[in-house]
């Protein structure tokens, strides 16, 4: 109930893939309101390349994150390539030697991802980017660690924080990316990156939770 096996983590990656694929049109729609309407296509492309390439492969959670990140970084371009590429690769590096991933490790992974992102973008919380989803999610995990919460409870906190973070972008004015040129006119609409980040984190949390349940079933 406290950990999941790194080598079983392929399921997590493929649930992330499916979540992005299912939301392709929605994400483009969100991006279309104040951006250029391609966020769904951008994300879907990278995630689907990963799916095709690793469908038949045995791959661990951290190796998969690194591979997915590398695909985004080297084959997708745009903003999403470097942004999600950096987050995922740095997440992977933070735990690549682990067989079992517990809350502490997972929390460190996400923090490292956020740090990596800060190295390449200047956006802070409140700037109406995916940082508004990712940063509170990281905080939620860190707090859960501090408060000794269980992994599954922590995941629920993370999801809630991510959702709240995503929702917060609605009332913000964009400061980075294409929508930033809109100024006040960008208010009132979700940020596309914050939305996709929430979708990814939610899929991650839900499928980790499934693995935890399975683990605990095995243990019992």
């Amino acid at each position, binding site marked *: 109930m406290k950990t999941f096996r790194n080598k079983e983590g392929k399921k997590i990656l493929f649930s992330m893939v499916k979540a992005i694929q299912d939301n392709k049109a929605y994400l483009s729609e969100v991006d279309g309101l104040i951006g*250029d309407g391609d966020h769904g296509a951008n994300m879907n492309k990278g995630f689907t390349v990963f799916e095709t390439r690793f469908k038949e492969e045995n791959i661990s959670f951290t190796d998969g994150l690194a591979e997915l990140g590398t695909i985004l*970084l080297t084959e*997708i371009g*745009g903003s999403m390539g470097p942004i999600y590429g950096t987050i995922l690769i740095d997440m992977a590096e933070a735990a690549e030697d682990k067989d079992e991933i517990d809350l502490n490790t997972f929390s460190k992974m996400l923090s490292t991802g956020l740090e990596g992102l800060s190295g390449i973008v200047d956006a802070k919380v409140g700037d109406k980017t995916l940082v508004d989803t990712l940063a509170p999610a990281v905080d939620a995990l860190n707090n859960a660690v501090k408060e000794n919460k269980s992994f599954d409870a922590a995941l629920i906190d993370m999801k809630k924080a991510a959702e709240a973070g995503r929702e917060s972008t609605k009332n913000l004015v964009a400061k980075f990316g*294409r929508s930033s040129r809109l100024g006040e006119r960008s208010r009132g609409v979700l940020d596309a990156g914050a939305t996709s980040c929430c979708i990814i984190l939610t899929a991650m949390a839900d499928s980790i939770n499934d693995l935890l349940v399975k683990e605990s079933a095995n243990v019992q």
Partner: protein
Amino acid sequence: MQRILNNPDNIVDEMLSGFLKTHNDIVEKTHNQRVVKSKESVENRVGVVTGGGSGHKPAFIGYVGKNMCDAVAVGEICSSPTAVAFFDAFKAANGGKGVACLYGNYSGDNMNVKMAVKMAKKEGIEVKTVVANDDVASAPKDQREKRRGVAGEVLMWKIGGAKANKGASLDEVINAAQKAIDNTRSIGIGLTPCVLPAVGHPNFEIKEGTMEVGIGHHGEPGIEVCPLETANNMAKRMVDVVLPDYPFVKGDEVVVLVSGLGATPVMELYVLYDEIERLISAKGIKIHKSYVGNYFTSLEMMGATLTVMKLDDELKELIDMPANSVGLKQF
């Protein structure tokens, strides 16, 4: 969507294939499918690289060629090329004297170039960059670092490419290109939106009977939406934003570039330029050279951009040098 397409996901690769077949006197492919290089040798001189999203024909690949860019990284439609593509473009343009990467100020390009420069450094290739930020409408003057690069990039490439071909050092090329863009201001007016083939519907709206002043090349909203005006009023509006920003003043010598955004008939660009020329000349500013045509487009958007660059002796010599690229040929 009345367009000439197969699978929208393959449009960039198919376009590149057709482009390479047509222009094999000027360009050639590299081992990276998303990097196109010039047939001109870079041996023992600085190489000039650019890159950006697709859909801006003739930018970016159309500016590869003699006295212009040596290699270009090609992205998806309206999306930055990958860091690896920029890196491979650096390698293709590296003749041992360093590489000048002259690109536009978009967040994706900034990130990918930054990563590519790091990769190049590891391999011992020296890369220096100039980021074009000529679009006056995209941020206030005291935040020039936030401004987008638009059609002024064409002039930056012309200057950088010419300087590199004169055998200048990397720093000299960078300085010339930086001066070119520092001396350059642009503004666009959008009349209709464009449709990304993979999306299938316009992702922003310009209502019939209105126009968007200051629009970006990807439909980034401008500074004002107002009722559609006559060509002469549009010209005045553009000139009145561009000239004071630099500012260009009486006695200056300038280059003027009027580019269509894609679907506006070229005839109308000449109508627009006719008035722009009148307004600029009336201020005692001398137009040394002008370019009118589709130099930097956004798929099938309607509208036009105005770009003005102030010349000094160096820039004048460089802008007058011949060029042989698909998008800019001059004898």
